[in-house]
């Protein structure tokens, strides 16, 4: 009897914990290694035998980033571009989602399929005509070029996430406003949006994440160092002759921090929204 209970309760529990621990090492070790490397001096990075924790903690890598206006500029550029993209995307996505969720109209289905398939169009296929377009419009190497082109991959998700969210709000809410003589525009901004805060937050976080992480368009549609975003900044650091590993890791930590914070704040909304959006779009 005792043996049986060991086999049916203790053993599976032990195996589960072992699995979870293995998963933790798999997921967490590279991230910890990155973090502690950013706190090492460059001579200590390939020390033998390798140590996770530095012998001497140092913030020299972080200081050298904060004291270099070029590198600070990468961060400012990223915040600016991702911030504006998020605001514009939210605005347009809310309008579109309201149209989708509250009305039926001709072309609705076509537009919907179009939006879903936009999610899967290869960025490289768009990049070539974008390059031609951006040069022709005279906006090569500007924030505007990045903001405009980023919308192509932020909008589809934002629209799908927001439509999903608005569909959960009863239509009686709008009708109440209309009965009182308000327009659907009033209903949207005075009633529906204040009730959609979780959906808006989830959409904003995801949009910011996509824009912050973008690489290909930023690499190709900007040129001068003062227009570069964080991912390209890290690429430029890598191109230098001697690898300043601690500095690259410090850049990576700083570059991941905003996403980590946003994610921790919004994770409840975010995961639910993401699951709904990606699985049932």
């Amino acid at each position, binding site marked *: 009897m005792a043996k049986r209970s060991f086999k049916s309760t203790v053993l599976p529990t032990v195996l589960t914990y072992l699995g979870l621990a293995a998963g933790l090492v798999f997921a967490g070790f590279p991230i910890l290694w990155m973090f502690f490397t950013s706190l090492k001096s460059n001579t200590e990075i390939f020390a033998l035998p390798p140590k996770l924790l530095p012998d001497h903690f140092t913030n020299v890598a972080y200081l050298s980033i904060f004291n270099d206006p070029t590198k600070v500029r990468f961060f400012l550029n990223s915040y600016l571009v991702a911030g504006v993209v998020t605001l514009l995307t939210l605005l347009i996505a809310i309008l579109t989602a309201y149209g989708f969720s509250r009305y039926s109209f001709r072309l609705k289905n076509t537009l919907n399929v179009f939006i879903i*398939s936009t999610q899967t169009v290869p960025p490289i296929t768009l990049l070539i005509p974008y390059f031609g377009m951006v040069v022709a419009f005279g906006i090569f190497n500007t924030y505007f070029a990045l903001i405009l082109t980023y919308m192509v991959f932020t909008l589809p998700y934002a629209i799908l996430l927001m439509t999903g969210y608005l569909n959960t709000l009863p239509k009686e809410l709008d009708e109440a406003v209309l009965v009182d003589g308000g327009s659907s525009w009033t209903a949207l901004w005075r009633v529906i949006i204040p009730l959609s805060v979780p959906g808006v937050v989830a959409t904003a976080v995801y949009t910011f994440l996509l824009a912050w992480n973008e690489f*290909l368009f930023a690499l190709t549609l900007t040129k001068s160092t003062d227009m570069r975003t964080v991912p390209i900044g890290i690429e430029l650091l890598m191109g230098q002759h001697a690898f300043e590993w601690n500095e690259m890791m410090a850049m990576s930590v700083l570059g991941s921090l905003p996403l980590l914070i946003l994610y921790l704040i919004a994770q409840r909304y975010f995961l639910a929204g993401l699951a709904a959006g990606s699985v049932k779009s």
Partner: protein
Amino acid sequence: MSLANEGLIVARTKMRKRGMLSYKTRKRLTPLFYVAPATFLFCLLMLFPMITVLRYSLMDGAIMKKDAAFIGLQNYETIFTDPVFWQSVGQTLYFTVMSVIFHLLIGLAFALLLNTQRVHPMIRSILRVLYILPWLFTAVIIAIIWRLLLDPNGVVNSILMTLHIVNSKVEWFSSTKTAIHALTFANIWAGYPLYMVSLLAGLQGIPKDLYEAAGIDGANEFQKFRYITIPQLMPIIISIALLDFIWTMQVFPLVWMTTGGGPIHSTEVLSTYTYKLAFSSYEFSQASASAIFILIISMGATYFYIKHQKAR
């Protein structure tokens, strides 16, 4: 799904004041007003560029020549006879298929572990957050993390040598034998959380009585997994795997930042091949032809994806 009453109410209350648009016109125009900005942007950023890239692919020296002439399918012929192109296709396929398989296996394993009742809910929710972390990092950061770890003098080699699994320092990213595998591994590490999150949501949605009924019929744990869990998760698995296939096939930054397609094209994938044609060789027309090839494969997979979504 329209607000059936809106037009009516608006008509009653406002028609006398404005009197310009009829009730019917107004009802028809309202939704169009809401979707107009997005529609405009999609035309500018999708429809127009698609037509442009198709035109480029049929021209001789697009972007570079002022009066580029149409030359039919010649650009397609050029890339289809390039052995590096077919090598890239093969490597893209290997990279993508391996990534999708291991993303699914790891994502499913983690989802099952996080869904078990044997572990305290508190621990589970903390671990769930930690397991998702790799997914938050941008591809550039994933690339440099793995370049650091897989450096010939790095920690991975050091551990493998201490355990006597390898005898000398392996040049993971700069050897033609190992580069594609190292790259695939880094991508597997970064990509499983999307599966984990979706499958966990799926697992939590499976009705408990299915398992109870199976238990009464004497099914063991494996049979429950095989005949209840997997079939119940199948729709999610198919959706995510299709999306993952499409996105992984388009991989660019990770490859660009680790190997740049080298050494000697051994990690060249379709997107790096296309990018180099366009922005290193300035052969925008040939690059467009190659870009159209990627597009067609993506659209093929997208067709199945949308069909699958509609069927559910």
